[in-house]
Structure formats: C-alpha cells, structure tokens
C-alpha cells in the first residue's frame, strides 16, 4: 500500500486596519449601511483617480519586517482583470511582479513541541472586493460595495506544510503576528482574515508535487482543519481508485462540512495583468523602513519566550496568552497588579476566557478590567475571600462593574477566619450528623481520609462558602479525634 504525503500551501487575505480605503478616503468601518461607504473612486467612475494610503503601505512593510522579509523599496500596482459584479472597475488593483514584501518566514510550533519554519513566498498589497448576497433578492443577487477598496495584504506561503495540523499552526502564528502588529483586527467572523488552501498529495518519497486543488475563503481555524483533512482523504481515494485529481477551485460549506467544485481550471487563469497607469510606482525610503522597524512591538514568539522565563509559565499557557496581543497585555496588567503570574494566567485563560466566549466579547471589551481582576486575585491571596467565593465576586464584578472590594463589603463575603466563629459552625455540623461522626471514628485511617471530605463540605455549606478552608480542616481534624 502506498504511503501518501500531504503538501499544503496557504494564501491568506489579511484585512488591514486603516481608517480609510487603500485608494480613496472612504471609511472602512464594518457594518455600515450597504453602499454608504463606496465613493466615486471605489466605484471606478470615469474621471476619478486613486491615491495611495500611506498607512496601508506602512502596515504591509511592518508585516514584512516582522517576518524577516525583504522590503521592496519600489513596488508596483497592477490591474488584474476579471468580471464579477462585486468588482465595479472590471479589474482588481493589486501587485504582481513587484510586490512590496518578498520572502521571509514564520516559525510554527506543533502540539508535541516540534518546531518548523514555513517560508513565505511574498506578500502583496491589494484592494478587497464588495460583497454579494444571494438571498432576499428574488433570485437575483444584491451587491454591497462598502468593502470594495478595503486594503488587504495577501500572504502567500511556500508549499511547506505537510499536515492539516501544521497548516492550522501556521494560520494561528500568522494571526498572532498580524494582531500583535495591529495591522489586522483578527475578527475572523467578519472576514478580516481569510484563508485559501492549496492541497495536493504525493507518494511519500516522490519529489514532484501532485495535482493540487484550491479551496477558497475559509474563515475559521476549525473549518480549515476539517476542510484539509477531508480534501486529503478525497484525493487519496481518487488516486487509489485509479483516477486523477483534477486541478480545480473548491468551495467549503461550514454549515454542512462539505466542499464542492466551483470551477475546473482548464488552463492558467488569464487575468491579463499590466501595471496600473493611474498609479506610479510606490517608493519608500530606507529611513521610513528603519523607523517602522524601530517601532515594531514585541512579537508573539519573543513575548512567549519571555512569559516562560520571566513569569515561569508553562509553554502551553504562554502560547495561549500570546496568540492575541490584547490578551497578553491584559494578562501582564493582571499579573503586575496582583504579583502572582500563575494565578493571573489561570484566571485569564479560565474564567475570563470562558465568560468572554459566552458573551461573545473580545478581551478589549471585557466587563472586568485587568485592575479589577488583579484586585480580586489579591483578595484570594491575602485570605479575604476563598477561591469559591472569588467566582461569585467575579460574576458580580462582570455584571455590575463595581470593584471586587466593594462587592465583598456589600455582600458580606469576607472569609470567616475567626476561629471562635468557625468552631461554632463545626460543632453544629458534628451535632447535626451524629451517625457520620460515629462511623468516622470507628473507621480505619485510610477510610477516614475519604470520609473527611463530607464534614468539610457540610461546614463550607453552613458557612455559605465563607469559612477559611485551611482553618476548617484544622478544627475538624481536632474535633473529630473526639
């Protein structure tokens, strides 16, 4: 039986975070009324001329610098011709022969800790197209051109990935870099990051690539992984049945988890590229590039390494925290405030992440600020509240926005550490459960250990969770001896 090897290359559309479009002063804000942000330039009306947005050029250069690529000081915009109603000009203004970013590489780390370098072929600047809706227009399509002209960089990898897992690791690493740089907001559900995957298979050991297919517009890591696995299995089936893989473009449906062929590529796409006569070459000075280099933030890989060494976090936690810049910033603010990085990491990756996920919020909109969470953790550490009560305070802070101290005070949640008061509660528990006490005292030591939990639970319940657990253990141990 033939052993197959998967070969994957990715093309990633990264929507930039400029306020205005790449060639016009129209807003790029998401969610506006249809066609309210499409100017005469975006529509390609006669007599209009594009003018290049400096911020888009700078963001592309920052990305290039972050991945160690060569920056083309002279790059050229070209016209890529195709007819589709969401592209009002009849061509897309993009870069082809002289893209702004050439080469570079992104390091990935797999779940087993293995590291690998994925080479980048190039990244070019281009404009996004509008959006078509196929429902609600009585068998026709509705076109919204607000997105037309939004700046993108298209990042094209070399075919260096050998499994769906590697492709997802690459996509995540790229996500971390662009969100850390602030050149992309990372809102995948809004299409800010879209992946096209090129997949082929070949018998292991064979040098020549197999015929590849391209699946377009995947906008989640999960879909990407599922789609690649499915496509690899499909291609192997075709080949093992004696067939040939057809070079085609495929479309993945995330609702049904199926892909279908969109169009077969009989020959290379004929886009009739030529340099855009409306836009002279873009030239950037060495000084500008140096200034952008100096302004680069700490990148995810470096930050992860620092989290491991400075805060003694596990590699796993450090990876989770540095995938997204704002999460890393939030964690650092919490850790500084409470002075306990491990507890801070547990809360940020546990309760905070869960709450944000449930409320579909990003960390920048978190209802509990980093300072408030830091204060909450400080109160656990200094014994003011127990870990269990802390969850209650956490929920209350998220709901009311009040400080943890205010909530602890208002709701009387301070941990009871007064031994006199605790003894009274323990006495009550023992008096209420004479049979269990008798059984405990008669039991052998190894069984006693298991039975002990019952008394702790009852005491905590009677104290409404406010009893200091260490003290409860101590008092119970003494009293149960009899």
């Amino acid at each position, binding site marked *: 039986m033939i052993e197959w090897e998967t070969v994957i290359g990715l093309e990633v559309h990264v929507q930039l975070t*400029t*306020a*205005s479009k790449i060639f*016009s*002063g*129209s*807003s790029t804000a998401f969610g506006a*009324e*249809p*066609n*309210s*942000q*499409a*100017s*005469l*330039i975006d*529509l390609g009306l006669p007599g209009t001329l594009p*003018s*290049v*947005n*400096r*911020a*888009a*050029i700078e963001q592309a250069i920052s990305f290039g610098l972050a991945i160690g690529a060569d920056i083309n000081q*002279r790059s*050229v*915009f070209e016209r890529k011709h195709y*007819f*589709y*109603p*969401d592209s009002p000009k009849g061509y897309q203004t993009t870069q082809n022969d002289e893209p702004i970013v050439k080469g570079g590489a992104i390091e990935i780390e797999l779940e087993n800790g293995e590291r690998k370098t994925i080479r980048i072929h190039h990244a070019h600047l281009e404009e996004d197209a509008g959006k*078509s*809706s*196929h429902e*609600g*227009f009585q*068998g*026709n*399509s*509705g*076109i*919204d*051109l607000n997105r037309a002209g939004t700046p993108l960089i298209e990042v094209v990898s070399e075919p260096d990935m050998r499994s769906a897992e590697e492709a997802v690791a690459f996509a995540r690493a790229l996500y971390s870099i662009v969100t850390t740089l602030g050149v992309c907001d990372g809102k995948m559900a809004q299409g800010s990051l879209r992946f096209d995957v090129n997949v082929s298979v070949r018998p292991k050991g064979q040098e020549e690539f197999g015929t590849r297919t391209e699946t377009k517009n995947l906008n989640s890591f999960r879909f990407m992984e599922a789609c690649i696995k499915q496509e690899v299995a499909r291609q192997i089936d075709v080949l093992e049945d004696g067939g040939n893989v057809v070079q085609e473009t495929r479309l993945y449906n995330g609702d049904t988890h199926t892909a279908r062929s*969109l*169009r077969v590529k009989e020959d290379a796409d*004929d886009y*009739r590229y030529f*340099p855009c*006569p409306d*836009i*002279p*070459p*873009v*030239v950037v000075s060495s000084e500008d590039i140096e200034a952008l280099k100096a302004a680069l933030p700490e990148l995810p890989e470096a930050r992860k390494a620092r989290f491991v060494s400075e805060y003694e976090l596990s590699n796993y936690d450090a990876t989770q925290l540095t995938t997204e810049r704002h999460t890393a910033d939030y964690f650092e603010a919490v850790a500084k405030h409470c002075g306990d990085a491990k507890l801070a990491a547990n809360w940020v990756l546990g309760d905070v992440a869960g709450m944000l996920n449930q409320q579909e919020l990003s960390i920048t909109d978190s209802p509990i600020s980093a300072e408030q969470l830091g204060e909450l953790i400080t109160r656990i550490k200094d014994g003011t509240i127990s870990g269990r009560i802390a969850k209650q305070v956490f929920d209350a802070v998220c709901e009311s926005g009040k400080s943890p101290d205010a909530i602890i005070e208002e709701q009387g949640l301070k941990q009871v550490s007064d031994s006199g008061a605790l003894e009274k509660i323990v006495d009550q528990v023992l008096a209420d459960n004479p049979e269990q006490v008798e059984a405990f005292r008669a039991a052998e030591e190894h069984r006693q250990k298991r039975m002990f939990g019952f008394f702790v639970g009852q005491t905590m319940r009677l104290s409404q969770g406010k009893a200091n657990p260490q003290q409860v253990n101590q008092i119970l141990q003494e009293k149960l001896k009899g």
Partner: protein
Amino acid sequence: MSLSQDDLIRLAKLSLLNFSEAELNALQPRLNQLTNVIAELASIDTQGAQPLIHPFDGTAPLRTDAVTEPDYRDQVLPLSANTADSHYVVPQVIEE
C-alpha cells in the same frame, strides 16, 4: 500573428461576450488585421529595456489615512437600473 477560431472563442469567453458563428467568421479577418499591426512591435529589440510603467518618472504620492469621502449613496444608487434595500441588484452571480 493570426488568431484561430479557438483563440477568438477563448477571448470572447474571457470578455464575457457571446458570438454566433457568422459573427466570429466576420470578426476573424478584421481582428487579424489589428493583430498584424501589433505583431510589428515584436520586431523591435527590447533586450534589457525596462517596461514603461508610467509615462513620467514620478512616484506615487502617498495620502494620509483619513476618512474624507461623504456618503454618495443617494446620488450613485439611482444610476443603476435595478436596486433594492440599498443594494445594486444583478442577475444571480453564483459561479458555474
């Protein structure tokens, strides 16, 4: 340089144009007249010459990133033959 019928059919497809066979037959010699003129360019030695991207040597002036364009919807949407809910309406465009 001469264009075959197949070349013409491919060009028509790329341009989203439909021709009858009679039209293609009429078109072929006329287009070939054009391409013959264009083919004369091939006799020029362009070895080492950089493509002319722009007629003058300037570079693209860069614009500050700011929103300066107003909402043109009320002026522009009515230019289209068919609109609904602030969308341009076109025949279904799900690809073949």
